[in-house]
């Protein structure tokens, strides 16, 4: 019998606000966090909207770097989760966190007045704070040191599946007996001009800029791409006995995780849908459940024509006639990329706690061919287990099964 992994703290930051309560209220109300981007100039860009988390440190013309925003949001989410769990820093267990790759950005690159790389390298010599800001391991390490986590912080990047992979690494460490508690998190702030341009060049983004709130419309006939989102979430995970021994309130459980790599294409799922089916199947089996036990699916549901079609097909293949109600909360918070797996697992836990299904908004023209109950409006529902899907560019797929507290 596997140890059950209890969740004793949840923290969340999205474009809907800071804190799980704020987020849950907005999600149930069907509010959108998508708006026009104001922290940089979007003149001439195909996509000019995102689910932005702007911070007081953002100055006109000098927005925070990806790395700095990842760190700020990650800190807020972890601090909230830790406070709820009744634990405090130094945490004394490991941190697994989904984070985006970072690099020096244009405001820094162009700040030295150099016009060639050799000149830039000489001019930038010894600007140690920038080096520390833009190391791949920089932001995650600062979070680890801020909260006193143990060992090497696992900074995982499996693109849009990173948050799910982080949960998986953390529960593996607990099940292996390496630790009795861990922080699993995700934080992403990839929204900077060059990333927005790169995604647009791949035709991955919605260009339905007006009105912004209607752009992210998973499972609709007029879905035309995803909307980038900033966000972070953190879960405090413990083996159940550890949580009970210290008298912690158990908010829910991470019952199982499954992953499956797709060898078909960098940005598309295999047309047979089998890698996604295998991924969901493995997660449900890891939880010791059968598909009939899943009462709700929080879909990857990016609002791209391709993903939503493939995901609906794969859900149909696995669940047959008895499709669980399925929503994509990306309709409200955008696609938070490396954080999505953690944020959406947190949303599943909140849904299980409240016994309410969060909606997919913008369903005026639902794509009925997909055959899903997409939950256009939040509604009460009695269920014990939920499935959260995350499928990444590069064929990295992770599904997580969350369970209600007893």
């Amino acid at each position, binding site marked *: 019998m596997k140890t059950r992994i209890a969740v004793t703290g949840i923290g969340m930051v999205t474009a809907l606000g800071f804190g799980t309560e704020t987020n849950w209220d907005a999600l149930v109300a069907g509010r959108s966090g998508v708006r026009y981007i104001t922290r940089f*100039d979007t003149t*001439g860009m195909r996509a000019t909207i995102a689910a932005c988390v702007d911070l007081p440190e953002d100055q006109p013309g000098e927005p925070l770097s990806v790395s700095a925003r990842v760190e700020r949001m990650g800190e807020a989410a972890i601090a909230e989760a830790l406070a709820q769990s009744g634990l405090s820093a130094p945490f004394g267990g490991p941190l697994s966190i989904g984070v985006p790759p970072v690099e020096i950005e244009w405001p820094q690159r*162009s700040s030295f007045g150099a016009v060639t790389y050799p000149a*830039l390298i000489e001019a930038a010599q010894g600007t140690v704070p920038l080096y520390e800001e833009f190391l791949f391991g920089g932001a995650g390490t600062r979070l680890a040191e801020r909260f006193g986590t143990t060992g090497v912080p696992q900074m995982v990047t499996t693109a849009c599946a990173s948050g799910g992979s982080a949960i998986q690494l953390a529960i*593996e460490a607990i099940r*292996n007996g390496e630790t009795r508690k861990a922080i699993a998190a995700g934080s992403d702030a990839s929204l900077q001009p060059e990333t927005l341009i790169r995604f647009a060049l791949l035709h991955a983004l919605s260009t339905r800029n007006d009105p912004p709130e209607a752009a992210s419309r998973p499972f609709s006939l007029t879905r035309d791409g995803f909307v980038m989102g900033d966000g972070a979430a953190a879960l405090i995970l413990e083996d159940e006995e550890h949580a009970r021994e210290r008298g912690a309130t158990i908010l829910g459980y991470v019952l199982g995780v499954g992953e499956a790599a797709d060898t078909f294409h*960098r940005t598309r799922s295999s047309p047979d849908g089998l890698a996604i089916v295998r991924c969901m199947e493995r997660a449900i089996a890891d939880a010791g459940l059968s598909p009939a036990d899943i009462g709700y699916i929080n879909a990857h549901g990016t609002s791209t024509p391709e993903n939503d079609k493939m995901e609906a097909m794969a859900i149909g293949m696995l669940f047959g006639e008895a499709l669980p109600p399925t929503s994509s909360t990306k309709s409200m918070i955008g696609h938070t990329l490396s954080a999505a797996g953690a944020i959406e697992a947190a949303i599943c836990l909140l849904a299980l706690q409240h016994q309410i299904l969060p909606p997919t908004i913008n369903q005026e023209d639902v794509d009925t061919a997909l055959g899903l109950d997409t939950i256009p409006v939040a509604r009460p529902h009695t269920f014990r287990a939920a499935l959260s899907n995350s499928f990444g560019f590069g064929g990295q797929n992770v599904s997580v099964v969350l369970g209600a507290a007893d």
Partner: protein
Amino acid sequence: MRRKVAITGLGLASSHGEGRAVHAALLGGAAPVLDEARFAPYPIHPLPPLDFAAVIARRELRQMETWQRLGVYAAGLALDDAGLRERVAEIDLVVAAGGGERDWALDEQILAAAPDEAGRHRMLMDGLRPTLFLAQLSNLLAGSISITHNVAGSSRTLLGEEVAGAEAVRVMSARIAAGTSELGLVGAAFTSERLDMLLLYAMGNQLHRGPWEPLPARQGMVLGSGAAFLTLALAEGATAPIAILSHIATDQGRPEGRPARLAALLAAVPQRRAGCLVISTASGAVAPTRDELAALGVAPDLFSADLLGHTVEAAFPAGLALAALAIAAGTPQVLVTGAGQWRGEAVALLERPGLLERTA
């Protein structure tokens, strides 16, 4: 009950070339292959021509730059070395990664034009190749390995410079030991011929300037292009294990605690036998290298960075691969150590298959 983990295949590519024989020949010490002019004052160990097109389909090659090509190539070498081509569908993959190459020419055009913000965005929109993003994304080295070699178990990518390379091996090894995976492919690639990487490390004052010097005499890192992938499997039942990975441990914390963490990591290594070889993957970065050498007490037999240059995420996997080659050449036991240029420490102990079983 922990199961024993074996290294069953090696995929190595570096400035010296590719494969086991080329790299086994380095173990007695060898002159470095250098390019001291191209990025002067920073010497680097350049990549030799490798026949990427022989193993990577043309349409896939177009979506990668050198970093991904090199990693995909070395991963393929490891699969061939282990004879695992028939079992790729069940292999779990863990990659330690930085990111892929930028378009330096476009960057310099923009720097020279010094446009306003909107003008800069226009130059990026007009100038960036759409596929370059896929070559840059950190997790797409693993993605490209899955696509090219059909590796279809799980796939994970860890960020975080040197210690990510060690942590990747530790995580994969722990899964096999715990029975949640049967076969693993783990490793990393690094290209030193990259202006964007030189910029990052120069900002940290981490690069050695001037003529090449052996590691203990360096005042910073001398980067090298290289990739190292290992296949890991359960020792029991492995048909031709190269070495037993009998111990691997990592740690990380603030720099002031590094000497104590290194001492604790070394103290926890199982007993070293007479004839135990010590390979250090020290980066050359001043303070961590000093702390690593002090913790070891005696000079290592080999610095991997002397032979290959410092390969960042690939440095620890490359150290393990060199250690496995030493075991294959008859050394009974090898200790591999490393301290990241900024954060992170790791140790591993490799032993000759059979040696362990006799004394267990």
